[in-house]
Structures are given as C-alpha cells and as structure tokens.
C-alpha cells in the first residue's frame, strides 16, 4: 500500500512547500523523441523568466548523464543516437530529476492542495529503446520483452510519446493496444495508473498551431489510438490525459519558426537537429510530468 502512496503521491513537505513524486516509464516508437525529451528536460536550457518552472536538478549520475547528453549532442547541433536496447532491463538508466515549480504560479491549479507554495516534483524515469514498442507487435512470450513489461508495471505513470510527424499510425495503434493489455495484467494495489499521451515534435508548424488541443492532434494523427485510449480509461483501468511538447522549441516569439534543421523526412517521421542552440527553449515538457505526479493539470505549464 505504501508503495503506491509514495510512488505517486502528494505528501506534505516540511520546508514550506508541497512535494509530489512519480515513477515514470517513457515508451514510444523508435525515433519518437524519447531520449531528446528527457535530455532537454534535464538540461532545461534558456528558461523563460515567465516559466512556472524554477529549476530542474539531476539527482543521480544517470540524471547527470542525461544533462551531459543534451549539452554534448543536442546543443552541438547533433542528432541523438538511437538508444541501445539491452537484453537486461536492469541495464537501463534510471533518470532521477527534481523539478521545482515557482510557488506564485501554482495558485491557478486549485485542485492540487497546497499549491500556493513552492511545488517540487521528484521523478524516477526510465526511457525504453523504441525497439520495446515495436517488439510488442512482433514478439510475444519473449523473456526479455516480459522483463521490460514487468519493469513497466512498477511505474505509477506512463508517458506514451507519439511522433506528431510520423505516418505509421496503424503500427502505433496496434502497439498501444498490446501495451495496454499488458498493463492491465497487473494492478497497482487498487490505485489507478496514469498514462500521459504526449505528441512530440510539436515545433512543426501544423502541430504548433494546434498545440493547445493535444487531444484533437491525437485524433488527427490516429483516431484508433485515441479510441483505444478512451476505451481503456472508460474500462476503469486508469486515466489518460493528452499533451503536446517539443524538445527543440521555437525561434522567437513574434513570428515563431521551429528551431530545427531537417535531416530527413519520410513516412517514418522527421529527423532533425537543433538549428540555433543559443535560442534553444523546449516547451510542454513539464506539463505531463506534473499531471503524472499530481493527477491535476497545471494551466501555466499547459500554456507554455
């Protein structure tokens, strides 16, 4: 019982603030931007003074590695290499980050008790190589895949990333279907699991203009995905919320253009690197985490 309480809970903090935590698994197809998302989060570059986020601190060495990857790869205008899938799920890096939100902004989220004070979010997060997701389609009864699924069961929150530029909808919907079935095999001690569906690469103009309507973007990308997630929520297995995000962000604010240089675009999705690292400011990265930790949406984070 305590496991759930503390894996995803709001507990009073002694030092004038409110604290919530979550154990998260980031899943999604290959090249959907999982590692770039996490690295951009750990690095949190060029933060706006208006951002509700005060600071993001890596807590363990894996978290520090993540920030270093952002610095040495993304910030150099290079492409993130594909994460190697290991046959041992224990080999996976477990990123621990503390996200501190400014107190003054939080009053607008009345559903999160005590939010007038500073809010800290502590997360442990593993990002699975995309092969995990595609293997769900192709393999069953594979022992490595089962190890991954078992590991996934420990999470209180799942961040399901879909590449807004990919056209492999049918594959994604089938993988999600199998993933949800696997999730249902294991309950979380009576508590409901949260699944945050995050559409990535929303710096792309057609996605950016609709970024405040993530559920509609999901429907536009794949009605099957949306339908399946809604059915899962209605079955009472857990709750789902929709988000839009970009690890690269936009250039400027008046006439925003995506901060990216295209390498290749195909049915598989867009491959790109950061165009201007000095103006690199990702958006939408903390909103899903806030929800996974607290169960409430944060208007200011949503509006980033």
């Amino acid at each position, binding site marked *: 019982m305590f*496991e759930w*309480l503390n894996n995803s809970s709001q507990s009073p903090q002694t030092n004038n603030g409110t604290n919530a935590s979550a154990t998260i698994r980031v899943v999604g197809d290959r*090249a959907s931007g999982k590692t770039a998302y996490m690295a951009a989060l750990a690095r949190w570059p060029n933060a706006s003074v208006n951002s509700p986020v005060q600071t993001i601190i890596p807590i363990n060495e894996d978290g520090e590695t993540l920030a270093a990857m952002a610095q040495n790869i993304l910030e150099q205008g290079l492409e993130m290499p594909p994460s190697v899938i290991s046959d041992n799920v224990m080999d996976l890096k477990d990123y621990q980050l503390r996200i501190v939100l400014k107190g003054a902004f939080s009053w607008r989220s009345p559903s999160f008790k005590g939010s007038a004070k500073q809010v800290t979010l502590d997360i442990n997060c593993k990002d699975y190589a995309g092969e995990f997701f595609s293997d769900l389609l192709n393999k069953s009864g594979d022992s490595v895949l089962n190890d991954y699924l078992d590991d996934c069961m420990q999470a209180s929150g799942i961040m399901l990333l879909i590449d807004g530029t990919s056209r492999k909808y049918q594959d994604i919907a089938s993988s999600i279907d199998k993933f949800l079935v696997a999730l249902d095999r294991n309950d979380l001690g009576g508590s409901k699991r949260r699944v945050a569906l995050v559409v990535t690469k929303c710096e792309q103009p057609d996605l950016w203009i609709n970024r405040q309507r993530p559920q509609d973007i999901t429907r536009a990308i794949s009605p099957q995905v949306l339908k399946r997630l809604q059915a899962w929520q209605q079955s009472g297995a857990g709750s789902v919320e929709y988000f839009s995000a970009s690890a690269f962000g936009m250039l400027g604010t008046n006439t925003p253009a995506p901060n990216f240089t295209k390498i290749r675009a195909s049915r598989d999705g867009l491959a790109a690197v950061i165009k201007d690292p000095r103006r690199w400011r990702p958006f939408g990265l903390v909103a899903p985490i806030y929800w996974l930790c607290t169960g409430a949406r944060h208007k200011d984070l949503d509006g980033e």
Partner: protein
Amino acid sequence: MTAIPLHIHEFSTGINPEGNHENWISRGFTGQYMNSTISEVPYNVERSIANDEFAVAESAVKEKPSMVGRVVLASGSSGDWSIVAVITRGKDEYVRSLTVARYFLAEGADSLSKIIAWLSFKESQGGLPIFNPFELKVIDKPNISVAPIAKTRATPEMIAWLAGSTPLILPSNQQKYPFPVVDMIAHEKAELTGQPVSWAFNVEALEKPERFQIILPASDRALDLIQKALATKPKDQAANAIDEKALKQAIKGLADNPTAKPEHCQTFVENIFVVFSTFPTADKARDYWQKLFDGQGASGALKQGIYTSQMVRLLTLRAIALPDTLPELLNWLQIDPNKKGKSGDYGEISLEFQEQLLDILKEPRLKTIFIETTRNLVAKVLTKSATPESVAWLFSSKRSLWGKYQTQLRTDLRHDLEVFGKQVRRVPTKEKFIVAGEGWNKIWEQMQPYWLGSPRYFDEKYLPVAELFDQLGDSLLASCFYQLSYGYISSKLFNQAFPNRQGAVSFNGLTIREQGYNERGERFIVPIPFVAAIAAITLLLGLGGGVLIERLLLAKPVVSKEQPPQSSNTSITPTTNKLSSPVSKSDPKPPSTSISISPKILESGLAKFDTTRNSISLIVRNIEDKQKTVPKLLIEDTLKTELGNMNLDFSAIEDESFSDKQKKEAWIKAVYKYQQEAGFGKDGVIDENGKSYKKLEKAVTKGVEARSQPSTSPPENNPF
C-alpha cells in the same frame, strides 16, 4: 616452423538490417548478439563488455575503425580469454548514427597477439573484417588462423614511455603506431604493471578510460578529451576488480522494487566483503561506497529532502554497507512515534524493506557487522548524533535488521557494566569488555568519576541513553543511566528495577538512589509550604533570584519539587541542575563563564605557569599517595570542581611543552577567581608555599574523601 592453428570465435552487435553487404541500414537493435560462432558468450567476456570495457563513446568513421584489445582472466567456469573488438559506425532509417562492434575472441591469455596477427593478415588481404550484418556465421565454426606473430621490437622511445603513468596515452599518430604496435607496447606495459593486457586504438572517447593500460587517441582533440576525462577518474585502479555494473544493478534493483529479489541481495552482500577486501584501506573502501551511493542519488536525497520509497530503500542499503550512516538514515526518516503521517510512512517503508532482507541476508559475516552497528548506535545516542526515539523505534521492531540484535546488545552491556564496576573499584577481574571500540572506550573512561562519585556526581549527558533503555523497557540499564544523569531515579523505575528494595541500592559500585530518599536509603521529606514559599520567591525575584534559589536548592541533597525521571515513553525535562558538567550537589560551584581579568595578570600568570603547574601536580600526587584506591581522574575532577571549571585541561599541567595558550589561560583565570572568592591576593598563580595552595589541597582532599567513601546503602543487589 608451422604455427598451431588458432580458433578465433566471433560475434557482433545485433541489429535488424536492411540492404546488402555493401550498403545497409539498421531498423533497430535486437538486444542480442548476431553472426556468432559461439553459442554463448563466456561469462567473464560478457561482464567485461557489460562494465563498458569495450565501450567507445564516439567511434571513428567506417574507413578507420576503432579497436579495443584486452585479456580477461578466468572467472567462475570461464577460462582466460583474449578479445579484440573492431568498432565502426552505421546508420538507421532515421539517419541516426549508431555504433556497432564485431568481437573476435580466442581462449587463453596469450592469444591476443595471435588474433592481432590474423587481423593484420586479413587487413593486408583486402581489409580489416568489420561489422557486416549480412556476413552470416555458423555456431561452432570459428575462424582458423595460422598467421605468425610479427616480430616487432619496442624502440628506446617506447621503452622510455612505458615507465610513465597508467593508462599511457600515445601520440595520436596511427601511421607511426598501427594497432599491432599498440598491442606490442601494451604487452610490454602489462609486463611492467602485472595487469592483464588492455589497449584502445584510434578512439575519440572511452566510457572507462581508466580501465586501459595503453590508449591511442584518434586525434589531438580526442587526446585532450581523454586526458580531461582521466583527470576526473580515481587514480586507484583497485576498483577495476569490482563488477560495478552488477553491483549497481543489484542496488538499483533493490531500491526500485517493492519486492526484493534474492539474486540482487546476494550480489549486494557479496560486494560488501569484496569492496572491503579490494581496497588497501577501510577509508578508501568507504569512499568507494559513498561515491557509489551518491551516484544513485543518496546525497541528493539527503540534501534536497527527497522522500520517495526508492530513496528510503537506497539509504537503508547504504546504512547496511556503510554502518556509520545509520544515524543519518534515522535522522532523515524523522522518526517520531507520536506523529503519524509522512515520517511514519517512510519509516514503515524502511521497515518493510528490512523485513524482506531479514529472510535473505543470512550471511554469517553480516551478523558481526549488525552487532557492531547496534553498539555504535548507542554510542551515537550518547553523542546526540542519533535520537533515543529513533533508535528505540529501530530496535523495537521485529522487522528491523538491527532490532534482532538489541537483546544481545543489552545483555552485553549489563555484563560490561559489571566488569566496569569491578574495574573502577579495583576489584580483580579477568573479564573484559564486550562492547568496546573507539567510541565505547571513551565512554567507559569518562564514566568512571560519575560511577564512583554516585549519587552525588552526575551529568545530564547520559540522559539520551537512559531514555533509550527506558523506551526499550530495560529498567535496569535505564536506572543506571538515569542515575548517572540526575543523581536519582523515579520511584516507579526503582521499583521496577529493584522490586524488593527501597531507598537506594548499589549496583556494582553505582549508588542508585530512589527519588525522595538519600543515598543511605533514608526518606527525605520537604514540607509542601517550603516548596510553595520557594516557588513564590522565585516568581518574585525573577531570574537573578532564580540563580539564588537554584543554589539554595542545590545545597539540599534531595528536593521533592524536582521533576522525577519517568519510566514512560515521554521525554524528561528536569527542572533543576541543568549544569552540563558534573557538579556535586553538596558543593555547588557554578561553572565559570566570563571572568574579567587584566591582560597584565594573564601575562604574568603565563610567565609563572610552571609554578602553578608544579603546585597542581603536587596536590594531585599528594592525594594519590594518601588515597591509594582513588582513581586519579576522580582527584582531577574534584580539583576542577573546586576551581569551578570542569573544562580545565589537565594536559596543560602534565605536559611541560604544552603550547595551547588559551587552555593555560583558562587555568590562570580559574585560579584568579578562586583566589578572589577566598579573599586572597589575586595573581592567578598557585605557589606551593601560598595560601591558595593550602586551601585548594585541603578542599580537594576533603572532596575526594567524600566521594570515595564506601556506600552505606544496602548490600549489592546483583540482578544476574
């Protein structure tokens, strides 16, 4: 001469390839090796790869592969193996670069140069065999080589380098130092260091540069990067013997999962002993553990106050591997039995975790560590590094790893108090202390005067330990330590510990006095109107009057107004005698604080300090000669009491070359004040022939006699 054919096995990084031999892309990693001639990668080779000993952070371009060569020594059922990895780059359908490797391996520690000879031969025949997903291989059909080892000799320049540091970084010149030459230099280096051969060739960066003997960087930039990376790594290569990856996995596995897996436990426990035997000193082993746990977020959790169940389990594991950190864990958990909620929950998570480990941690050597930790923890309670509540919480739970040994600890302590009692009373005994060690030796030593001087001699510093044993329900140990704290104990506790006694008992020389009785066991009654009058005067006079009243009260052996120590779980707040130093009730001397003394007097006091030193020494010696059974410490403490400053350092008296000016001045000030109070001439110096000397010697002699007189209390009540 024909060489004996060598079997060279191989396996490659597993990918889902698309394309053909010349032109292929990856559609994802498989997580398993491909194109293998060996059904199972030998265990030691697999561990070496898992520990990043072949990991090239950023590989070179396809035309110029990076290479890593090393020998891994036998481990478990796997024999020695020599391995060479040829590392290149590929692309996936998203045009992302990926690093792929083709590993060649042969049995035996001396096969590395033979693999190199074969690779050189292959290179001369059309190119180095690099990763090719379409070059299929068959199990048990290894490559066969008869290539002779080239006779390359080390140049004087190379020999000069070899004596240099490890790893040795060569200039980034692949023409001058092709891989066979690098291999040859590495063999020479291995001869010198006695370590297995290991080298990296044409590398941009390495995950673990410290695990190599020779490194040839791909470029000058790479050389810089590698040197910088090495500067942050520990110089001590001892850690290379530890399978750190497996250990980290075990720790992560235990911290992350609500259900502990036995295999993780086993790895963790084995490593507790491996780490301590690997490093030359215990301090280095401790540093290693500290860094390992910090890498997992331990220091972050403590500093930032991160309370998650993972962190609770991580810090619990840390307290097992690093017993000194147990008080830190207890403080961090904020144990408060009266408070439900957060602290209760986290303590509960730690206990749940410990309960799971209880069944798994059967390693007998661990028992010694746990017993030692419980002893040290009590010492930490005395020094206030841990609260009695948190330790009582830990010890009382049946689910606690350490609680299991608390009965043993209490039995040992009772035994030791008996031995202690005999030792301080000079009763011959062959028995030795069980609870010993640095912390405890000091405690035993410092306890002597209080024990002998009981019940008039006491100090509140023992209160936390008294509270601990009180909360653990051990009335005897609680009685002893309350007695040492307050000079008496509550009637309730007295009756629990000594059911057939009344008033006072002697426990191995410690006079334990029941509240409301004097040390001879006679009832002492203070009329209530007297107490009321005192209270009223206290109120009227305010603080200044309070001091006066306190003196008045202190002059009485027992005053019923005193808040008695309770034998319940509540903490105790005594209303009288808050002096931190032991002060005899019958002879109150408020601790000296600030004394105004002119710098001139201080100066002349320092100049004549030898006179004071000799006089004080003489007083102690004279009393020692007269009272042969009295410990020197008791005489010294009585003298300090008489001079009104328990912080006086006798090193200044005993050591002629003592140089701490401040401590000497403390003596001068105390003497000056003593003279002032006695109405003598004040010079801060005690002269053998002066009035101060005579008065002090007389007073100390009297004080010592009073404290060392045999107790007139009832005969010893030995509970054993």
